[in-house]
């Protein structure tokens, strides 16, 4: 009986090939259902790793290491590459020769932007910073959809 159960468990586990993926956005949102309407369970940071258990349309069901809950993230927020948050010399070498690694904070980063700004002081970033702060909540979007008599269907909704 125990053996049968073990075989059954391993069969269901392999029905979908689990994948390790990384959060590739600054603020990743995990929801209770595969939809932007789903309740927000938690938020993850750039570079956090998750195990993808299943896929439904453009959504991935994820398991978060250390958290006893499953949730859904839109797949565009995830990367199959491992994101190294504090890369060392061997990571840099590996990144140059592999397609499976991303180095966080390398290449064009805050330091490069600051250097660019010091060389081009006439270019004003004030409004870029301001527009990034404009926040729209999911409730506002839902009200907007309802009040405008819109009817989202399919796609990522």
């Amino acid at each position, binding site marked *: 009986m125990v053996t049968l159960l073990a075989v059954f468990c391993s069969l269901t586990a392999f029905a979908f090939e689990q994948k390790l993926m990384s959060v590739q956005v600054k603020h990743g949102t995990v929801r209770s259902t595969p939809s932007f309407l789903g309740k927000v369970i938690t938020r993850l940071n750039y570079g956090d790793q998750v195990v993808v258990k299943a896929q439904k349309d453009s959504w991935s069901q994820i398991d978060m290491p250390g958290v006893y809950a499953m949730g859904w993230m839109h797949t565009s927020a995830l990367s199959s590459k491992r994101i190294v948050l504090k890369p060392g010399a061997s*990571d840099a070498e590996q990144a140059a020769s592999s397609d499976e690694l991303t180095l966080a904070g390398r290449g064009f980063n805050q330091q490069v932007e600051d250097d660019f700004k010091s060389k081009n002081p006439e270019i004003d970033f004030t409004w870029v910073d301001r527009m990034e702060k404009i926040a729209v909540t999911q409730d506002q979007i839902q009200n907007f959809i309802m009040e405008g008599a819109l009817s989202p269907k399919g796609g990522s909704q």
Partner: protein
Amino acid sequence: MKISSRRNFIKVAAKLGFWGLAAGPALIVKGCKTLDEMSESGTTIGIGGFNINTASIAKSAKAVSKSFEDITPEQEYYIGRTVGALVLEKYKPYENRMANLYINVLGKTLAQASEMPETYGGYHFLIQDSDEINAFAAPGGLIFVTRGILRCCQHEDAVASVLAHEIGHVQYKHGLQAINKSRVTTAVTTLAIEGAKTFGGDDLATLTRTFEGSISDISSTLIVNGYSRSFEYQADLASVTILKRVGYNPNGLVDMLNIMNIRLQPGGSDFVKTHPAPSSRIAEIQKNLVYSKVEPPSVRQARFKRALGRV
């Protein structure tokens, strides 16, 4: 556009090498070989004042070719911020809180129905204070529309079509594809050698020059030369798809283009220069879309008028 801001834009544009007037920032990698090709022959590149033979990079493992697809969302975000700042040199912001909030709620609603609802820094929208008919999408999701293009919209379905077209450019990473391929290779090569430590001195200067070059490539495409016709048609197709998914009449795009067709002035530096003629875009869209009159419900029309009636 104010004269002073135009003057500043011209100054900045010339400095960054727009229009081919000034030579673009010096490229460090000689020629346009990919890292793969260089590794095989052991091409010598100069970084940080040192000449390094790339064959040494490939000693332990085979280097892989890098393209715009290897630009990480984090790097795309920083590229987008600076492109956005450049776009704001051309036209100043239109500081109307209600109108900008409306554009942001509408834009975010549309972005959630796109193929790429999540980007590193998210989608943000801003109206620019100009009569010219223009709109821009910086990589990563900073989207700009002028008062001029909003005046071509007689209903919310049309405004949605403009924003969804720009979201299409973001989702297909059209901006990043404007970057000269050798610059991407340079950035990645610098990473390979200097990735282990914080950039300092000459290495930072190399990377910043490559950054400036990339910004120049994208901005000159967005602001001066325009994308290829096929990219524009692709963005129109994305717009139609997004509009349908959210529940708008996709013919909002056709209505907007018909008004744009009447209002575009020959010789301008806006859509008349950077986009295919509205009539050509309509013809392309109507290969897959039958026209039906756009008749938004009165509540939708009322909020559109409230937000953008005086734009």
